[in-house]
């Protein structure tokens, strides 16, 4: 298992699994601070046999630098032929309802489940 932890957040990826789990509030200061997380996400793009899943259901807050980080990942992902990208989100988390559509505009095949 690989994980990245901060004062208010945790990100986890199990070995041999293309699901990345996000928890807490992400408000890092910019590209440099988000780089390790973006790298971890990009690792899921290597053997594109199963859908890549971003589980954001417990990610309560994301600043605009975090939105930029996800945008960069999505742009990278849409360049991978045959890759399916799926986002698990929650109706109860306001930013999911407001801002996830920005990622879908970048990659129309991206699917979002709002539970």
């Amino acid at each position, binding site marked *: 298992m690989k994980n990245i932890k901060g004062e208010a957040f945790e990100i986890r990826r199990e070995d041999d699994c293309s699901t990345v789990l996000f928890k807490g509030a992400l408000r890092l200061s*910019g*590209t440099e601070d988000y780089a390790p997380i973006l790298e971890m996400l990009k690792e899921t793009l290597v053997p594109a046999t199963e859908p890549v899943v971003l589980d954001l259901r417990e990610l309560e807050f994301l600043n605009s630098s975090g*939105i930029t980080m996800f*945008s960069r990942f999505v*742009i*990278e992902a849409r360049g991978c032929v045959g890759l399916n990208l799926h986002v698990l989100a929650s109706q109860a988390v*306001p*930013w999911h309802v*407001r801002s996830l559509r*920005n990622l879908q505009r970048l990659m129309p095949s991206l699917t979002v489940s709002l539970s």
Partner: protein
Amino acid sequence: MMNSETLGKYDKRSSDCEYLMLVFSPISVPLRARWRNNGLSADFLGDYVITFLPAPSRESGVEAQHKLISHAVTYIANELLENAMKYHERNADIPIGIHLELTSNHITVSVSNGVGVGQATRYKAFAEHLLEGDARALLLQQQEDSAKSDDAAASGLGLLTMISDYDAQLGWRFDAHPVQSELMTVTTKAVVSLQQLEAGAAA
């Protein structure tokens, strides 16, 4: 530049409204060391704004609406503070301040900081660019551009998401420093309609 100039939606503060103001002394502590202050202050404002609103009745849905309003204030306050802290002119004897106010159907969050005249001119040009363009199209373009450049801090994505995702109306004010002609105080103001925020729940 003139002594004072405004751009976009910049109404005067109403005299009969509830407000809260936080002011941070201009200190030379490194940005990284006080970064978490942005989140702490934004969370506080997001919680505090609820005290301005009518108490939740037993009617269902009121708490959910409060959560939407609280989140919008937290997001906007956090982005405005992050920008102010990033671009604040370190050597200026100008405090960074954040002001939250509620009128009958709008919430306004405004943040002030000190900048050099050069930075003020660049920011003004960016503000004009935002006012002229379509926020959604600009946002998409910025997201595409972010993949090509590392200069995400200067991308203005925070302001664009406020307009595009929170239906905020933005305004700016640039004030010349009374003594030091190379400095200005810039205030960025975001106004959101309570009705529109609540409608966001249904979307």
